[in-house]
């Protein structure tokens, strides 16, 4: 039976306006990739129905090691949380090829 290796999954849900800049930051902080989906929702900044441009939200997920995960979480906390509709959470998952998700130098 194949074994999986521990890995972190960082999920960020945010205004679509910062998708590109989040993606750039995440790669710069050591991730090897990310995945983005279009979403809608509600939070402390009210209902976001994705009816039109400024109203769209995205969900970005990043598989990475703990080092990168911490860096990402720190970074978004500092640079985005105050001014943007945004949340983030981290969970533990198992992956097949751990090398693929280790911090990039």
């Amino acid at each position, binding site marked *: 039976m194949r074994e999986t290796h521990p890995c972190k999954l960082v999920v960020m849900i945010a*205004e679509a*306006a*910062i998708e590109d*800049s989040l993606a750039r930051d995440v790669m710069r902080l050591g991730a090897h990739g990310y995945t983005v989906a*279009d979403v809608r929702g509600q939070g402390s900044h*009210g*209902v976001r*129905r*994705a*009816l*039109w*441009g*400024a*109203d*769209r939200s995205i969900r970005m997920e990043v598989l990475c090691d703990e080092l990168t995960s911490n860096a990402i979480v720190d970074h978004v906390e500092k640079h985005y949380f105050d*001014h*943007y509709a945004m949340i983030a959470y981290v969970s533990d998952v198992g992956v097949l090829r751990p090398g693929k998700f280790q911090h990039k130098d």
Partner: protein
Amino acid sequence: MDAIPLFFLLGFVARLARSDLKIPGQLYEALSIYLLLAIGLKGGMELARQDALALIPQALSVMALGAIIPLIAFPVLHKLGKLDRFNAAAIAGHYGSVSVVTYAVAADYLIARSTEFEAYLPLFLVLLEMPGIAVGILLARMGGDFRSVRWGALGHEIFLGKSMVLLGGGLLIGWVAGPTGLAPLEPFFFDLFKGVLCLFLLEMGLVAASQAPALRTSGVFLAVFAIVMPIFSATLGSVLGMMIGLSAGGTLLLATLAASASYIAAPAAMRIAVPEANPGLSITAALVITFPFNILIGIPLYDRIIGLLFGS
């Protein structure tokens, strides 16, 4: 009666009544791509018939108008309205820039009344899009932290934003291809224009109504501003229109451009350049109040004002 405001009302009322009617997000995108390109193409086609160089003085004065409006709006919002610097600057920027759909409604208003206007006016639409936004950002960054602005990213956001590319690109294509090159595109880009505009206004009604609850928290001052400011800007625009020798129709379009507030380009740019500003405030003002005010009341009102100015 003209159908355009009716479509807006339908969307507005449907949303207030909490109907589940929704314009899918990608249809919204498709409609706005179409409208921007079509307006650009039409303007470019007319530009091909003009001596473009002769328009430079007019063009410069129009751009100055776009820069002046936020300079006037800012102190009003900051001092009178007690809004913090970021919000005052962001809102001012929205009113310095323009609304493409409001322009289209005004152009349709003239066409329905067979009033002539300078067909190259979409050029002014393109020129008015940016200066207001740029001034708004400068106002927000006044007082030292200029270096924190990522000017590259920002210029990029403004000049290469979707609406600039489509309007400007359409203008260029129309100019290069000229009337004969565009003739086979007429059934698509021109004949369908008003129908697409109606669909878009249905969506605008839905969106405006969905933002309406924010009115309760945004305060009375902003509501008053969102009506008085357009009237003031329209007057400014009317005077400029006369001064640069536009016809009454062209003057109405310029006045409407001045009166209109951006809700596509400006929100996107401000979100990146002035994240401290609460986007709810500017959207509420521009979209929930100024936009319906302009298309339902403003345009005929400015027409009246211009009628007086032109002494007809």
